[in-house]
């Protein structure tokens, strides 16, 4: 199944390339040679098409690592229970969205871009193309009109406004550009939480056991409200802002990776195992799978503060990534 999907992706990319070639030839016929040449080289940039395709894929197809754990969760639930019923509908929905190339969930969420780029990269120009692609994707229905002016309540900006989309740039040592995209729905964002250790009520101290306790507390408080079964991204440390940013970055990790820090690896496993004993289950109906995964990262902190920031991702875990090759055409899919 995985292979097939990749093949389709390639096909789509190829189609786009062919389209462009046709456009080029027609133009050549219409205008003088020299002028066309210039235009053709300029026009060659495939960034807009690549970003639009990235948005389409992210909104309509769940990546393999996530589909795999969703299926595992389905098989784990007992037959003829409400939990199995919910997981079956989730599975059918994932398949249908892919087939129809329509959004998996109608809440297409906060649009989070993570861009790793080489030295000398022009962030402002890139941002402009991102905005164009987001508007187009909204017009095409891959994204819902989902960005509201916080003061007037108006929703007219086609997902481009202050803070939307949310683009994070990082310079890396590699030569190519890597773009990751995550669509994070409102229901699951609402059950995220930030704790300050020590937490007296939970008897949680300033150590890993304290961290464990507050994460579990967040799972119990979330119940099924974040459209569980979900995945947690957690950041230990940082200030309040950096902590939440890092917790979302943890959701960019592959679900089947292993944390290189042995204590954090243990913590991640412990959280998933313990949460699944809670019996909250899919949608909070009760059942064996409450969490599909937990990813924990660390930032330094001030001696005076100890934050634990938790982002909850729903089962509709939409994230994808690409590396760009020549002329910004999609070279590789990352998930």
């Amino acid at each position, binding site marked *: 199944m995985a292979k097939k999907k990749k093949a389709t992706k390639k096909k789509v990319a190829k189609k786009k390339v062919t389209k462009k070639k046709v456009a080029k030839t027609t133009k050549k016929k219409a205008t003088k040679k020299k002028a066309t040449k210039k235009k053709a080289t300029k026009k060659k940039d495939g960034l807009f098409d690549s970003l639009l395709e990235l948005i389409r894929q992210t909104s309509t197809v769940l990546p393999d690592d996530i589909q795999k754990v969703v299926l595992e969760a389905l098989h784990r639930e007992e037959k003829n229970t409400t939990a199995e*019923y919910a997981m079956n*509908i989730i599975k059918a*929905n994932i398949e249908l969205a892919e087939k*129809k190339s329509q959004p998996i969930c*109608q*809440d297409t969420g906060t649009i989070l871009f993570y861009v790793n780029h080489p030295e000398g990269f022009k962030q402002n120009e890139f941002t402009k193309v991102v905005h164009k692609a987001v508007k187009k994707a909204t017009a095409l229905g891959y994204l819902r009109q989902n960005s509201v002016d916080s003061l007037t309540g108006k929703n007219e900006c086609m997902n481009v406004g202050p803070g939307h989309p949310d683009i994070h740039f990082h310079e890396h040592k590699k030569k190519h550009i890597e773009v990751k995209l995550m669509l994070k729905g409102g229901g699951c964002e609402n059950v995220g939480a930030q704790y300050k250790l020590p937490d007296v009520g939970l008897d949680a101290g300033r150590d890993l056991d304290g961290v464990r306790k507050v994460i579990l507390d967040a799972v119990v408080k979330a*119940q099924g409200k974040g459209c569980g079964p979900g995945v947690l991204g957690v950041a230990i440390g940082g200030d309040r802002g950096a902590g939440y940013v890092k917790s979302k970055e943890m959701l960019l990790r592959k679900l089947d990776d292993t944390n290189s820090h042995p204590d954090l690896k243990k913590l991640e496993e412990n959280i998933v195992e313990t949460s699944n004993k*809670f*019996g909250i289950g899919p*949608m909070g109906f009760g059942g064996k799978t409450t969490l599909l995964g937990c990813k924990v990262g660390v930032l330094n902190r001030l001696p005076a503060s100890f934050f634990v920031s938790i982002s909850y991702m729903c089962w509709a875990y939409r994230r994808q990534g690409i590396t760009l090759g020549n002329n910004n055409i999609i070279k590789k899919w990352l998930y």
Partner: protein
Amino acid sequence: MKKINYPFKREEIRDLRVGDMVLISGKMYTGRDAVHKRLHEGTKPPIDLNEQIIYHCGPVVLKDKKGKYEVKAAGPTTSIREEPYQWEVMRDYGIVGVIGKGGMGPKTLEGCQKYGCVYFHAIGGAAQVLAEKIKSVDNVYWEDLGSPEAIWELTVEDFPVVVTMDSHGGSLHAKVQESSENIFKENL
């Protein structure tokens, strides 16, 4: 698996219990924040809601070339926002079912018991599966509230839900909350 078909009857709603998996066929009306607020402020509903079902949903509806409405996505929205108003709609207009996600609180549960209504939990995020179950869009009311907030009259077939609050005081949400909190405490 249980089935309920339109026209819905209060007695059959009284038969439903927490944990029942139900397929609903027939009519339902969407209604979310703005509709509930307007009803609460005293405006009469444009349709007779007696023995009807309200769906907490802001659907994406498009008009096709012939002017026919088509539902593109129709997943449930979070219900708890209607907690202050829902029981009044049961008392004043006689609804027998509420569909949404995330469950509702004690006021609604009491309303369900008193007036004979249940809370059906749809699968959050399953926009495509649920949209397929909507066979037609029959009418729209209060369109001035904006498309997602308007009352859409829908005909559905085998619309899948789970009863999580029944008319006998049972709430799956309260139960799961309590048992999970207990296990959590044991693991502290």
